[in-house]
């Protein structure tokens, strides 16, 4: 049962864990912990979507692990004051306005820049982008995994991408 449900998604689980924790060692611990949780909780698996179920466990494990071990390293938008949230939503991370189309060439950012920019994003923005682009999940599955309505997934994706664009643009 566990073999059929959790194991086929190991590679994806690890990839998600690595993006959420930011490094390979932590990701291994998180996946191992998540596998254990999944193994113990396999009886509660009643859904059809084994992939979403597995990734949900990985995601939640990653967050509780981060909060326990590196609470300072994680920024949740919920933790910010309303004014800060407002600022983040409307201006981006460094108060920079979004560039006008004329100024925007295609990105020439190298992998390191992009990885750093992704790591700088608040967790809630980063996770939807990772789930969408790296794990290639659709909105419905992302909503299920992150436990928010689809509308919130949409706005976080949109805002997260804007923030990334701004961060990568700032680099010049």
């Amino acid at each position, binding site marked *: *049962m566990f*073999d059929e449900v959790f194991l*086929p998604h*190991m590679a*994806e689980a690890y990839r998600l864990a690595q993006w959420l924790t930011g490094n390979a060692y932590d990701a291994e611990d998180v996946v191992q912990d998540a*596998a254990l949780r999944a193994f113990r909780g396999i009886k509660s698996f009643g859904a059809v979507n084994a992939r979403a179920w597995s990734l949900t466990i990985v995601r939640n494990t990653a967050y509780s692990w981060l909060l326990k071990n590196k609470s300072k390293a994680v920024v949740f938008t919920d933790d910010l004051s309303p004014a800060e949230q407002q600022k983040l939503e409307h201006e981006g991370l460094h108060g920079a306005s*979004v560039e006008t189309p004329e100024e925007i060439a295609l990105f020439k950012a190298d*992998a390191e820049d*992009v990885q750093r920019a992704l790591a700088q994003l608040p967790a809630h923005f980063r996770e939807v982008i990772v789930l969408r682009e790296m794990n*290639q999940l659709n909105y419905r599955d992302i909503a299920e995994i992150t436990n928010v309505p689809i509308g919130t997934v949409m706005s976080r994706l949109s805002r997260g991408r804007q923030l990334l664009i701004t961060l990568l643009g700032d680099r010049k």
Partner: protein
Amino acid sequence: MIASMKDNDELQMNAYCDGELDPASAIEFERRLAADETLKAQYNRLLSLRRTVRSLPQFGVPAGLQARIQSALDADRPSQVDRPGWASRPVQAGRPRQRSWSFQALAAAAVFGAVISSSVMLTMERYDRQEDVARAVVAGHIRGLLAPQPFDVASSDRHTVKPWFTSHLPLSPQVPDLAAQGFVLEGGRVDVVGHDPVATIVYKHAKHTVSLTTLPRGQSVSDQAIAGYNVRSWSDAEFTYIAVSDISSEDLASFERAFSEGSPAPEIK
């Protein structure tokens, strides 16, 4: 900044980029895209970001992690019976990732092309329908695995399974016995694809379950891996067959050969 996009536009653009707009809204959005230079620039920027993010190196599962997890699980539940299939799994876990890259390239190309020609939308829609069929069939397989038994009628006798299908479904496939080729007939079940009940024949290969779903001809899907299961599809004069299993794609290919050869000519009534 000169032209700030309205929030709604921004959301729509993202949804379009992710292939999550309904066909009518997508066509409407393409029309606007063609007419609005600013919007087009924003959209190109979004595509550029996507390409950049997706071209990041992907992390592979480190060697030894599976083994560590297994020993952690064994420690957790020492009385656990041995779990067949574990040893063959690492190879399987790697496969969907490779597949997803070629899929990624395809999806990116499709999205990009849609900007130029809305006729591409038709192709994408057809592709989506195929994807839906494949997903529904895999979902049936997974449900089967989670149920106490993966079939509604249990029999290794094809003269039991075939009549059972005939009495439950408007169209029923031949049910060949392939035990000689290593695929033991276990039984049959009814899956629902779209809104139609269809026949699924269940075979066992080694300790792995193979679900063979039979659809009316013309619904073949591409061979792929979904949720860790290999999917293989082929058609004959009457049916499109979709086989789903966690056995390797090579084994699935020999299953197709065995089934095609073992399937007797349609009976004439």
